[in-house]
């Protein structure tokens, strides 16, 4: 059981999301950096899809009422347990009464606190994710506030954890071969041209060549980009159609919107491109005010990156199991 001691707005319970209900208008939701949640869950011995806390407003503090095993993944900040700095991307054991504190990370946007057994909130429509728009799921359909108390579920993993913890090389480092680094502080985000790209003619080229800034009116639903507006050569009245996270729509003002985890399920604005799914976690870690550039990609390239991520996840799972089994054999 944990109790929230300090929380800004918009910190929520999230797992890998609630896909499968877009046809009745329900957003998939889920962590903005799902890779951080998966890796955190594997480290503490959970199934991949167990619910964690997504912290995007700092500082954030919680008290372990009972003890527990946890890991903090995602952001590049050092978590503190009773004022002592801890390694991120590593399992730790908390004693009853200890306080975990997360401060504003230096560069990235979101941290995930993953607990052994996961957060024991009800499963609604196949997920424990908070749907802020729908007002359901997660912690009573709303962000965490001071005084909220949430228990842990049970973990099926019977293997012991080493007292010093299991750490992992974080994805940004382990996968640097398939995720191009920032160039002059500009994050490259790969995308594939979408339905109405041709409608933008020369402005379509400007979309790829310019640097966009993530505007302050960005949230889990979507990132609004500021830059030189792009306009279609004709106004089209699109019929409402299904959309997914990653789609880049251009509303009449000409500044693109990228749909994120709480993406609307239907839209009608012209679509210029779609971010490849395996780059979405990097967008989820991009902060308001930071800059990005779109790089033309292909399905083949996306598959190559997906396969590299799958190998990394499988490797983390296998290695952590090996370490724990070896420890058990020694014990």
């Amino acid at each position, binding site marked *: 059981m944990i109790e929230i001691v300090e929380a800004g707005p918009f910190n929520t319970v999230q797992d890998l999301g609630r896909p499968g209900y*877009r046809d009745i208008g*329900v957003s998939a939701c889920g962590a903005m950096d799902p890779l951080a949640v998966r890796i955190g869950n594997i480290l503490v011995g959970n199934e991949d899809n167990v619910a964690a806390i997504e912290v995007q407003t700092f500082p954030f503090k919680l008290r372990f009422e009972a003890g527990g095993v946890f890991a903090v993944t995602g952001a590049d900040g050092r978590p503190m347990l009773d004022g002592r700095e801890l390694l991120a991307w590593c399992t730790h054991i908390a004693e009853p009464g200890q306080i975990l504190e997360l401060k504003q990370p230096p560069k990235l946007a979101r941290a995930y606190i993953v607990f052994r057994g996961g957060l024991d909130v009800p499963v609604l429509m196949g997920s424990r994710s908070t*749907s802020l*728009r729908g007002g359901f799921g997660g912690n009573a359909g709303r962000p965490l506030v001071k005084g909220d108390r949430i228990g842990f579920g049970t973990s099926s993993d019977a293997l012991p954890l080493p007292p010093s913890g299991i750490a992992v090389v974080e994805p940004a480092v382990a996968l640097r071969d398939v995720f191009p680094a920032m160039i002059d502080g500009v994050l490259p985000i790969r995308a594939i041209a979408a339905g109405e790209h041709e409608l933008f003619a020369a402005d379509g080229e400007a979309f790829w060549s310019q640097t966009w800034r993530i505007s302050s009116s960005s949230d889990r639903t979507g990132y609004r980009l500021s830059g030189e507006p792009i306009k279609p050569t004709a106004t089209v009245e699109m019929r409402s159609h*299904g959309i997914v996270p990653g789609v880049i729509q251009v509303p009449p003002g000409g500044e693109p919107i990228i749909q994120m985890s709480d993406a609307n399920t239907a839209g009608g604005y012209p679509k210029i491109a779609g971010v490849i799914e395996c780059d979405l976690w990097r967008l989820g870690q991009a902060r308001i005010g930071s800059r990005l550039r779109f790089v033309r990609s292909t*399905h083949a390239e996306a598959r190559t990156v997906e396969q590299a991520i799958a190998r990394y996840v499988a490797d983390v799972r296998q290695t952590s199991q090996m370490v724990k089994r070896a420890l058990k054999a020694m014990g």
Partner: protein
Amino acid sequence: MIATSNTLKPLHEIIPAIKGRARVSCIGTRSFLLEAPGEFDLPAQRWIWSLAQTVKGWADIAEVIPGMTNLLAIFKETPEDPDIIATRLLDAWNNAESLDLAGKVIEIPVHYGGSYAIDLPAICDFCGLSDREVVRIHYEASYRVFALGSAPGFGYLHGLDPRIYMPRKTVPSLRMEKGSVTIGGMQTGVAMLTGPNGWNSLGHAELQMFDPTSATPALLAPGDTVRFLPVRIEL
């Protein structure tokens, strides 16, 4: 609310023989949108309903989202060759027969006019009819749920009388109340959430249309027929 028969039955009507070539485009890696050519009408939507049934049966499909005369297919994996997916979808479209989803009949009690009908004067100005006529034309029609989307349980309703078509607002209302009965272009519907909304409100309905704890969370389903019952008209 009255809910009756929820069965599939083919409707014996004359269907235009030529469907025309649909357009397929991709959104990112796993999602492909097929857009029906031609009119925004019931025959086109029946082909979409039929296509949805077919595509749902494919082993490599994760989700199928029928839209307004279009369909978004989300595959489990990123395909190596997107052209093969486009061809499969087009073939399925060409082979799709007309399917009528004869769903339930749902009657929604509406309080027309009053404090929620913030856009009724603008609708009257646009169509040149009195508020009484606009309201009567709205409740006398029978609507079909073409698709759900945009908000949990929100149904896009087809069947609006062209005399009261009303374009979406260029600047959306920042706080449209949940339950507002609205017109957006050639469509009508009931707002599911309080929040920004570009449609035009002419009344209000008190009806719980989405319950996440239910086995069937959404009251409406594609194919359902909706009728609005004027329980109060306050002009």
